[in-house]
């Protein structure tokens, strides 16, 4: 860093750039990079490859020379396929006006923030939750209002949580269920409470449902299906998690025409259109890969059972996460500081977990553990953690 850059007054950087903190996981990433023989359970993406049919469709599209831009909103046949696909969650959207294909769900979240948030607006963000919501609020000029969720409610968001945090003043509420990092899900009854709060206080909801297909014990419920919520909700989903297509960078947003239209206007000046090759892969994924997805979900479910059972047995209490591919055990007795525990574990046993506090209020004292790794790695990692605790 030059002297000029370090000096806030004369820096060429914008205030937003200067004030964006580095990700809380960066230090652990750097530590992990130094280690040989590391087992990382800090990975937020599946260890599977995208289903072969989807990859093959991507290759075919390239062989046919389909390398130009698509419509800003995404190919119409993909939007139609998405519209058809989300009917399984009782969602109904018009492919022409209410669906936008984006460069990953992350871009869609950013677009929605910029379309809905004015400088000074407050955005309620339940925590612990995915790291990127806060910065996208800041990039739009808004203020984050953290809303802590609680272990005793299995990290589901409640009316009381919102009320206590002062979320009545918020103009936008972010939801992420099934949740990264806790694996928590919300039932229809629990979502009804949140919907009631949103209606009462005229709050728009951004519901990130990227893990909807990875719900293990019952069916996914979208808040947009609740009465009077479709007009005040944008739903995000994508192909990264359920279809193991993280590198394809393809997501989508579903919402009322005016909001999707505004998001598309921003999108057309920034991304123009989502990657064309990925769009062809996504059409095939939606049309023919349900069986492959079911197999991945079954494998994730077995791993989930395994890791929860082992953590509980070795003395790291772990509530029963029911979605996504994370569990969120508590630090073991004598280790209240999750960062210290994660650092000791990575240095002494070469196992990387992510400290819960980086995901915000309520995450401290926990660790995010991804089970998106093979069973041999999970077993070795749990054995190493157990041996660390015994030696401690």
């Amino acid at each position, binding site marked *: 860093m030059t002297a000029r850059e370090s000096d806030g007054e004369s820096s060429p950087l914008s205030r937003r750039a200067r004030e964006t903190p580095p*990700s809380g*996981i960066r230090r*652990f*990433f750097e530590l*992990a*990079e130094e280690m040989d023989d*590391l087992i*990382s359970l*800090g*990975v*937020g*993406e599946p*260890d599977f490859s995208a289903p072969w049919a989807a990859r093959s469709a991507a290759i075919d599209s390239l062989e046919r020379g389909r390398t130009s831009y698509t419509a800003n909103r995404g190919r119409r046949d993909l939007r139609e396929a998405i519209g058809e696909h989300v009917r399984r969650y009782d969602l109904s959207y018009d492919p022409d006006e209410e669906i936008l294909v984006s460069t990953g769900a992350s871009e869609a979240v950013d677009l929605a923030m910029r379309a809905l948030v004015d400088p000074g607006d407050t955005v309620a963000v339940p925590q612990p939750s*995915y*790291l*990127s919501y806060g910065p996208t609020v800041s990039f739009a000029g808004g203020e984050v209002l953290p809303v802590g969720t609680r272990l005793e409610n299995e990290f589901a968001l409640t009316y009381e949580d919102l009320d206590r945090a002062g979320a009545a003043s918020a103009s936008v509420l972010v939801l992420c269920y099934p949740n*990264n990092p806790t694996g928590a899900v919300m039932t229809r009854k629990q979502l009804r409470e949140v919907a009631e709060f949103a209606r009462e206080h005229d709050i728009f909801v951004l519901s990130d449902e990227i893990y909807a297909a990875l719900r293990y014990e019952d069916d996914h419920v979208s808040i947009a299906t609740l009465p009077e919520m479709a007009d005040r909700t944008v739903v995000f989903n994508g192909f990264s998690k359920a279809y193991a297509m993280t590198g394809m960078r393809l997501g989508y947003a579903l919402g009322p025409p005016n909001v999707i239209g505004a998001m598309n206007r921003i999108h057309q000046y920034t991304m123009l259109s989502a990657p064309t090759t990925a769009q062809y892969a996504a059409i095939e994924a939606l049309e023919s890969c349900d069986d492959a997805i079911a197999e991945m979900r079954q494998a994730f479910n*077995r*791993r989930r*059972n*395994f890791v929860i*059972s*082992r953590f509980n047995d070795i003395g790291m209490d772990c509530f029963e996460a029911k979605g996504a591919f994370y569990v969120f055990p508590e630090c073991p007795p004598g280790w209240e500081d999750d960062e210290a525990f994660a650092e000791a574990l990575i240095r002494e046993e070469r196992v*990387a977990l*992510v400290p819960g506090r980086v995901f915000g209020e309520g995450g401290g004292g926990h660790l995010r553990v991804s089970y998106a790794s093979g*069973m041999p790695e999970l*077993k070795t990692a749990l054995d190493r953690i157990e041996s660390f605790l015994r030696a401690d």
Partner: protein
Amino acid sequence: MEAKRELLDLLLSDARESTEDIARQLGTDAATVEALVDELESEGAIRGYQAVVDWDEVDESHVRAEVELNVELDRETKYRDIATRIAKFPEVSSLRLVSGSFDFAVDVEGESMHDVSRFVSEQIAPIPEVTQTVTHFVMTTYKERGVYFGDGDDDDRLAISP
């Protein structure tokens, strides 16, 4: 039935997995897993447990051939009769009746190509019902019973990601 199917899936991917680990993955207890395995074995659904070996990694000679076999049946002799006779040879590691241009697919193993050739010509071909043998020596195995023998792709995911 569902529980047995799930158990078989796990054993197919790793038959050495401990009963306790299998139980954790299936959300049940070790005693239940043991009971299910006992049932599957006594029903004859599980016929054995074997390692999947990459012989190229073992420092000894090992040759395998896939032999196509055509046979001629008569009133007295059925496929099963011929199969029973061929299956008794220890050199035969698998034997299947198949559809298509030949009748039996036979896997034969030996210490050398000469061994395998001699076995086919001296033990299989002379069986009265056998009308033709075609021997294909295995040059390289890339995948065996679902296990890929390549070096495997490195995990290039970020060690820590959001």
